[in-house]
């Protein structure tokens, strides 16, 4: 017998109960500015920071790679350094989540996943209206493409529990609400 059929034959055939409902805590109503303030606090706790358009321009003086949406926002040409050599990767985000300081980045037409991952600094441009209060809210709006949620800089505590940032992914993350 094929492994699939064997496994399926061995699995218990219990009657299907209805699935337990998920608790839905009431969503507090906040303005986008309030949510961005909360987001900034959470991000800072993780070692990231909120920046301005001017900060972005300073950062772009370093060898960088821009994806085409962030290039459009900044009025620049997309591209730049080869992905494995760039110090700075610039992308947009689809959503920012206030409660955890997280960013949602889906793949999409002409998007490059590695831009948010290979460089040592990830510069993220987020239109101001793309913020939600909770992760639960964000997860009702996910793209059906491969998606990553990023919460702060890459980190490890494998060696004696000591926190180190930037072990494989970017050790710095700067989010610019626009």
């Amino acid at each position, binding site marked *: 017998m094929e492994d699939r059929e064997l496994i399926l034959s061995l699995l218990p055939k219990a009657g299907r109960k209805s699935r337990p409902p*998920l608790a839905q805590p009431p969503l507090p109503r906040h303005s986008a500015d309030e949510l961005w303030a909360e987001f900034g606090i959470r991000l800072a706790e993780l070692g990231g920071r909120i920046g301005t358009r001017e900060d972005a321009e300073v950062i772009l003086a370093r060898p960088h790679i821009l994806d085409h949406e962030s290039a459009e926002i900044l009025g620049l040409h997309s591209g730049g350094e080869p992905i494995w050599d760039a110090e700075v990767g610039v992308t947009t985000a689809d959503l920012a989540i206030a409660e955890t300081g997280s960013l949602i980045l889906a793949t999409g037409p002409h998007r490059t996943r590695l831009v948010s991952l290979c460089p040592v600094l990830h510069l993220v441009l987020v239109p101001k209206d793309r913020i939600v209060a909770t992760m639960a809210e964000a997860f009702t709006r996910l793209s059906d493409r491969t998606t990553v949620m990023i919460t702060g800089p890459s980190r490890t505590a494998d060696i004696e529990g000591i926190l180190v940032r930037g072990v494989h992914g970017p050790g710095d993350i700067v989010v610019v609400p626009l």
Partner: protein
Amino acid sequence: MPKGKKPSVEAFARGVTAETTKSVRAASKSKTESRIPTLEIAFHDVEGARTQAAQIKEFVLDNISSLLVQLEAKCKMNGIQVHWAKDAESARNLIARLCEEAAPVGSTIVKAKSMATEEIHLNEHLIEKGYEVVETDLGEYVIQIDHDTPSHLVTPIIHKNKRQVAESFSREGLGPYTESPEELAAQARRHLRDRFKEAKIGISGINFAIAQSGRLVLVENEGNNRLSTTAPDTHIAVMGLEKILPSEGDLPLFLRLLAGSATGQRMTVYVHMISGPRRKDENDGPSNVHLVILDNGRTKVLNGPYREILRCIRCGACLNVCPVYRQVSGHAYGHVYSGPLGAVLAPALEGVEQLPDVAKASTLCGSCEEVCPVKIPIPRMLLQLREEAVRKGVLKEPIPWSMFVFGATSGLRWRTGLKLLPMSKMAQHPMKNGWTEFRDLPEKQGRDFRKWWNGRS
């Protein structure tokens, strides 16, 4: 336990250095301490969140057959190729074949940390086939170059200190000797970058598979997991068949419970939700994504008394809080799954005949159940495993309990025994040497209760 031989975990514990215990205790303690404050921020009602997670996992186990079929169908729609493996050997052969189809022997395979692949001893098999297999999680990389095995689900080198890591890195020529964790991490980053660039295949585990959408969810902090599943042209994911969640709406609950319970984080840095191979209009990502659904004893567990252990989401909180784990580290359990989780899961998967005494390596203090995000009744199952082992005669009890019970089933015999107790110091008792090796024998303290009671009435 053969006569005269110490139980396996105790025998191992005697060789564990004070340095190891110190490392394990310090890291376990700090993770345990950050757990509750983090969960209390994430949930108004932590207890309620744990109950809900347990119920959802129970629903999954109740409906595992139809959820797996649903997952398979959705994955296929997403372009993920689904394979099934009944046991470790079948899984190893299958994955080796997938590798051979993807890249010639000799190619580099990057691995993201995965307990399922540890369980089936995949690396050894692929290396034997001629592939260069590189573990890319910092801790797992250290394990690999030291020819060691992970001693914790989440922090594999919890038993090592920075001096030991420094020595390994300088021996392997990763850079100048340094004990700075930052420098060591930077050396690993530089060294492993080249491996990621040249790798043709990435192999990972998964944390959750979503039945409703056919999406594979991987969580990690370092970024090596994302790199391993993004840079190479082929991604092979291996999952234990119980790792299903019904829908994406369940993720916020489980992701927050996992991050808080595992490392005291509000959220893990990267939550990678894979919906299939790269699409035509996307610039990167693997062209082939495979999912291997692994049984390897799980269907047996699902049909037996230890079924609830399959609710586990591998957070490691029970290891961190366990007094025995803190003392002996993960290797003492003699299995890839260690700590309270391992003391149940390992014999449940492999049979109590194979691992008759690990369930005994517990004080039954109950702290594991208290911290478990999916409320697995671990102490209850440890007791059941002990019972099964004794009933099947695979665990020889050092104490003849029938003698004890003879005394405990008659008031007269019991009282006579109490009178003889002071003489027991001279007598041979099967527990005596175990007691006196590290402690002084107890003595009767103060007045005798029964004399006092009889005297007052």
